[in-house]
């Protein structure tokens, strides 16, 4: 399940929705990304997330399908917000459910790494002077995503 929304989400509710009325799940991993008040040496007072409606959903569905293909997942959820946020706000939530914990951990880690480098979202950070800047792509995110590329 993927969802792109402006509204805040409730992590507990989303995990419960995935697990309730099921007794075959052994492991659930959740990842939540939050707006930090500090990034790359600058203080952050606000964040605006722009995205490409339509393509965002397509990319998230592709990433989800790839995770389900690579690991033994019983369910999977990606929720990503757009719009205006303040430090402490959740931005993204990924949940994976599997009979085995390593599958749940690896799939969640993979989903985040691919999402970061493929889903068409762009962050604009504001500081206390009111100036806002587009966040730059980070080499560490590219390296993290490359871990999941099959070696040829």
């Amino acid at each position, binding site marked *: 399940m993927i969802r792109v929304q402006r509204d805040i989400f409730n992590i507990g509710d989303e995990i419960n929705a995935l697990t309730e009325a099921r007794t075959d799940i052994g492991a659930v991993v959740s990842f939540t*990304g939050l707006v930090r008040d500090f990034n790359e040496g600058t203080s952050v007072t606000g964040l605006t*997330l*722009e*995205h*490409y409606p*339509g*393509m965002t959903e*397509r990319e998230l569905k592709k990433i989800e399908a790839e995770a389900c293909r690579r690991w033994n997942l019983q369910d999977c959820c990606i929720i*990503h917000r757009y719009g205006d946020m303040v430090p402490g706000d959740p*931005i*993204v939530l990924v949940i994976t459910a599997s009979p085995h914990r390593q599958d749940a951990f690896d799939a969640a880690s993979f989903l*985040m790494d691919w*999402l*970061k*480098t*493929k*889903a*068409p*979202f*762009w*962050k*604009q950070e504001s500081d206390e002077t009111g100036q806002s800047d*587009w*966040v*730059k*792509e*980070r080499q560490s*995110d590219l390296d993290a995503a490359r871990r999941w590329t099959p070696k040829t």
Partner: protein
Amino acid sequence: MKILYFAWLKTKLQISEEDISWSQEVADIDGLVRWMRARGPVFDEIFSDLDVIRIAVNQEYVTGNLSLTEGDEIAFFPPVTGG
């Protein structure tokens, strides 16, 4: 063809979306980029360095050249920074 711009491309060009007619001149991505650069100094500057631009046609990433047809949706945007 529908052209979309996102993030700093949109800010710099002050356009988020525009429609252009298909012609032999913009029959593929390479042609479209040449056509963009000829539109003025801001366009020329932005489209001179394709390393910092990602291109999607009909909401799928494109690398390299690709033929375009009337009705295509072409998007130009910087490397993504979500998550």
